[in-house]
């Protein structure tokens, strides 16, 4: 998933609109469901944690920048049309590539769904054009609707669960609960700018986080795999190791 600008609202921020560094799992399932043409709030069960597995990696250096937005102040439904006398000036954190003119934001996403039918439709959708992407619903956006982006389909791989502690180079972000030890190597091949973010993973029907609906993820902000001993990962048949966001 690529684009020029992104904003993934930290759900607990109100007076200022902060952004996660990567799209949370809930954002990704929203995008997938939207591309498939599902209506708002109608797909949380279909893409629940036990149904659908998602891993993701940040594959291009990003930076964050604050811009103050002069937004409508809406304190009650009657003010959706901007009838409140005051505006709300909200500092908004944007995600940008290092250089927006020449660079792009680039997130790699791995998707697995238990239901073969869903996998089939997704694949059909992804493979239907090699120019840009297809959608049976939404225009693809990186978080907020105005931050339009596009998709590039990479490939399909088989994977094998490895549920014993093992030292691997993990391509994706890693749930902190799977990390036994980070084995940071400082050399030319491996650069790290690690952050830990507590990301939403799953909603219930009322858009409330479920019991396991939130998790700490270790993210490398620069595009290199993270070497770590992890207690669970998926080994793909292209040799790469990933961990599901769960």
């Amino acid at each position: 998933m690529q684009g020029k600008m992104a904003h993934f609202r930290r759900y607990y921020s109100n007076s200022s609109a902060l952004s996660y560094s990567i799209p949370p799992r809930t954002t990704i399932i929203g995008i997938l469901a939207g591309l498939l043409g599902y209506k708002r709030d109608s797909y949380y069960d279909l893409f629940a944690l036990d149904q659908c597995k998602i891993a993701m990696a940040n594959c291009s250096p990003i930076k964050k920048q604050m811009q103050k937005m002069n937004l409508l102040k809406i304190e009650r439904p009657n003010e959706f049309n901007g009838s409140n006398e005051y505006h709300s000036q909200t500092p908004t954190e944007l995600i940008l590539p290092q250089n927006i003119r020449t660079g792009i934001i680039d997130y790699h996403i791995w998707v697995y769904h238990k239901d073969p039918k869903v996998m089939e439709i997704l694949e059909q959708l992804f493979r239907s054009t090699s120019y840009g992407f297809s959608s049976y619903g939404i225009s693809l956006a990186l978080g907020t609707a105005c931050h339009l982006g596009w998709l590039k389909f990479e490939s399909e791989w088989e994977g094998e669960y490895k549920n014993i502690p093992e030292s691997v180079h993990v391509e994706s972000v890693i749930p902190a609960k799977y990390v036994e030890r980070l084995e940071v190597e400082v050399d030319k091949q491996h650069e790290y700018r690690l952050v830990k973010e507590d990301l939403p993973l799953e909603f219930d029907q009322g858009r409330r986080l479920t019991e396991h609906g939130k998790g700490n993820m270790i993210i490398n902000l620069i595009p290199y795999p993270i070497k770590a001993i992890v207690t669970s990962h998926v080994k793909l048949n292209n040799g790469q190791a990933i961990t599901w966001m769960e």
Partner: protein
Amino acid sequence: MVLTQNSDFIFGFEATMTNPNGDPDQENKPRMDYETSTVLVSDVRRKRDIRDFLKQKGYPIFVDTLADKKVPMDKMFETIRDQWLEDKEAFEKLFQQNEELLRAWNSLAESDGTNYKEIYLKLINDKEKVRKKKSMISDFNNLFLTDIIKKSLIDIRLFGSAMAIEGITRTYTGPVQVTWGYSLHPAELVKSNTITTIMNDDASNFGKKHKLYYALIAHYGTINKYSAKLTGMTETDRQLFRKSLVQGMMSNQTDSKQGQTPLFYLEVIYQPEFDGYLGDLRRFLTVTYDEQKSIRGLHDLQVDFTQLSKTIEEMKKKDYIDMVVGWVHPFADMNHIKNLPKYEMVDLWAPINNG
């Protein structure tokens, strides 16, 4: 007719000695990414210009922030409701288009008369009847308001909105989405800041006014046929959108916005059967300039569309594209805008009908 085709568009404009979009938190300096000297312009800036322009042309606008008209949403809906109830022909046309609405009305109305407003108001002002027919009234209002609001308010059809009808909040995502714009090259702030003076009888204000020397800024956007179905955006709306994008900028002549000139608009319209998008068209542009020289005009740049043109040709071969429409400023120096894709000219300076 409601839109049946997706499209991608790119809109470029020149900003000369102007402030295309100030950041209120930075002394209203132009929004910029200072690390790369790139000017940024928000999507809402574009939408505001369009709304203001359409309002000037007499179109009722939902998101209206001008101080002279702060009408709460329910009052606004009431006015629209009354307009439709008073217009017998328009109201009956709604019935033809929406059987469900006709059924809801029939279960509600207590006479066969055609003075719809009278029948309706008599009913909802009768406390006893309102109590008895509560759910029927609510059903009718729901269907009726959702339908006529979209028909009456062009900015909802284009950009969507959140609104509340009968206490239920609904969100319509706009078929038209516009990204933040960015300058296609590094830009410079004017070094001396003009001092603005506002003098009243007994007080005066002094402040800084920040401007750019020059920037060629481009926004990318999409129009989505699936969202269009939900908001009722029509082919005519698409034409209105294009013209208001260009003319709205031209008619915004406030002090800080003087010096903004639309330069080009290109829209790739896909075949009705094609469900895709190319995505951000700006990634297909190549812009070159002399790194040692300050950029003060289009003459200091080369904007090359070759890659976009090639991609469009490839897609045309596969029959994904119905057509490309475009507009370039009639006096633009075409020595600096090269290899545009083939397009069908649309005159975006042509006047629009009053709403």
